[in-house]
């Protein structure tokens, strides 16, 4: 296992994130942040939303979506930065930076979802 890199885990999170984002985010954004504000559909009530978002299952799902999406971003962004800008000599640093941000965001997500009333 030592000889194997960490890439499989990172890649698993990246693709998990990619898949979840692909399947769930467009509809969510469309309803919640476009159709509802524009009044095309009846806006979800505060109570209803609260139930959806803050029910234990809701929290857990949100956490999964958020974490995986952050790692999805970190992974793609890491490669894009050093391929796109040809910063191969900085590849270590870029990897550390991007994944650290993802970890930090994950911690924040956990904190928010645990503490929010």
């Amino acid at each position, binding site marked *: 296992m030592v000889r194997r890199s960490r890439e499989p885990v990172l890649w698993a999170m990246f693709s998990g994130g990619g898949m979840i984002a692909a399947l769930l985010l467009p509809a969510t954004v469309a309803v919640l942040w476009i159709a509802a504000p524009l009044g095309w559909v009846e806006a979800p009530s505060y109570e209803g939303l609260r139930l959806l978002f803050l029910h234990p299952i809701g929290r857990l799902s949100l956490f999964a979506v958020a974490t995986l999406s952050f790692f999805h971003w970190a992974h793609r962004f890491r490669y894009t930065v050093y391929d796109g800008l040809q910063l191969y000599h900085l590849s270590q640093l870029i990897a550390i930076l991007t994944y650290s941000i993802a970890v930090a965001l994950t911690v924040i997500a956990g904190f928010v979802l645990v503490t929010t*009333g």
Partner: protein
Amino acid sequence: MAKALNAGYKRHYPKWHRERVPIFWWLRSASYVKFMFRELTSLFVAYAAGLLLVQAWVLGQGAAAHARLLNWLSHPAVVTWHVILLATLLFHTVTWLNLTPQALVLRLGRWRVPKTVVWAGHYAAWLVLSLVIVCLFVGVA
């Protein structure tokens, strides 16, 4: 590791030419541009996830706080921005789902599920999940 191809012989290299890769190499072809854009959709994915978290947090702060968020969400500029967001997310979805069958080989017993079926399956899943989401949100209205 690779062994030297010719044990007893060290190769003499003539003066080779190596083309430098241009900084904006990804502008060289339409497919590279598309690739770059595809990769950058990840920023939007992260934003959407972040905003969901914010909304969850605001929901916890009470109805008034949430009303302020809704107010911000319905500002025309914000809506416009979210339309752009939606477009990029759709781009992500389409590219993602189109590439999946290339990576995923499914088998049912000895039968190798054809790529088109894998592809269609993913789109079907997308459709169903999107409907579920719409129903959930509209249902709690």
